[in-house]
């Protein structure tokens, strides 16, 4: 381990919101990654909580397979409320 490994940084900007990916940084260990993330990504009160995860531990979908992979979400328009025609008399539905 000659170089410090890469970590991905996620910040919760205020309570009630989810953690959001903000970028990455190198650190020798998770504690240092959290401290660096504080110094690099929250100098102006941008966060109330920080997650870090070693980038090598992250698994991701393959963008070259996007068409096939996300296809099931495209052909089921009956999942959307606008698919259903209701009489105008029905309000607030």
């Amino acid at each position: 381990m000659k170089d410090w490994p890469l970590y991905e940084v996620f910040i919760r900007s205020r309570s009630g919101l989810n953690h959001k990916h903000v970028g990455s940084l190198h650190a020798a260990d998770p504690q240092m990654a959290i401290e660096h993330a504080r110094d690099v990504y929250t100098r102006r009160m941008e966060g109330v909580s920080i997650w870090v995860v070693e980038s090598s531990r992250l698994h991701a979908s393959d963008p070259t397979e996007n068409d096939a992979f996300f296809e099931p979400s495209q052909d089921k328009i009956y999942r959307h409320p606008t698919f259903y025609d209701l009489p105008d008399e029905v309000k607030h539905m």
Partner: protein
Amino acid sequence: MPAQLFEERIEGEEKIEPRDWMPEEYRRTLIRQISQHAHSEIVGMLPEGNWVTRAPSLKRKAILLAKIQDEAGHGLYLYAACETLGVSREDLLSELHSGKAKYSSIFNYPALSWADMGAIGWLVDGAAIMNQIPLCRTSYGPYARAMVRICKEESFHQRQGYEIMLTLSRGTEVQKQMAQDALNRWWWPSLMMFGPGDADSVHSLQNLRWKIKRFSNDELRQRFVDMTVPQAELLGLNIPDPLLRWNPDRNHYDFGPIDWDEFWNVVRGNGPCNRERLHDRVNAHEEGAWVRDAAIAHAIKQRNRQAPVAS
């Protein structure tokens, strides 16, 4: 096929993300541009570091430290964005340290007086912002996101610089003279920050087509001049260009020719501070080696000490 999809996505203002297919030349161009940009942030701390211990008040010192810390942060955002293109941090740093990679030539000029801290914030950061705001819409996602963060933080840099100039220019005659002297020395190098004129810019056309750049060097330079001249008037300072005047036909300021020989001379390594900057940077890296090694040794020790715990 992937090439066509790539062009369509660029055309449709869709961002390109790290694992998407991209032409090799697009990748190379981005690595060059983002790393140069990162190096500029890091080297850009050096002229200012010169004034931390000599700032005229505790307030100014604290502000200067905060600005320098931002620049370290900007360097880190950009190195991280660059690494998503498959290049390692170590390689990026060694290219800077060997002198192979370039950084913005402006940082090869010396910061001789306190007024230079004002002129750098006002003009150098002002020119940088002019360049960077369109980059928030650049076609490569991680670069665009880094630029959004940077632009948010950069505005304080310019304002604090202008405020230093304002204070000096409303001060004693000597202080006003200091401000004028700083403007005299930083004006032309600031205009050079936008790079060669469009006719001589090697990378411009392809970069505009790929939406890496959104405006040409000359367009941005003109915008900078138009914005800055009234600000200098407000300070009561004179811009050191006898040919500068408002042109009502163009609705822009005309300005004198830029000394491109000087620009290329500094790019080639012969500016007033090129050697000093590189020497200081290499020195900082080498003298920090034991800290990096110690952190690794500590991490390994901690890891070995913690027996795996079932949760």
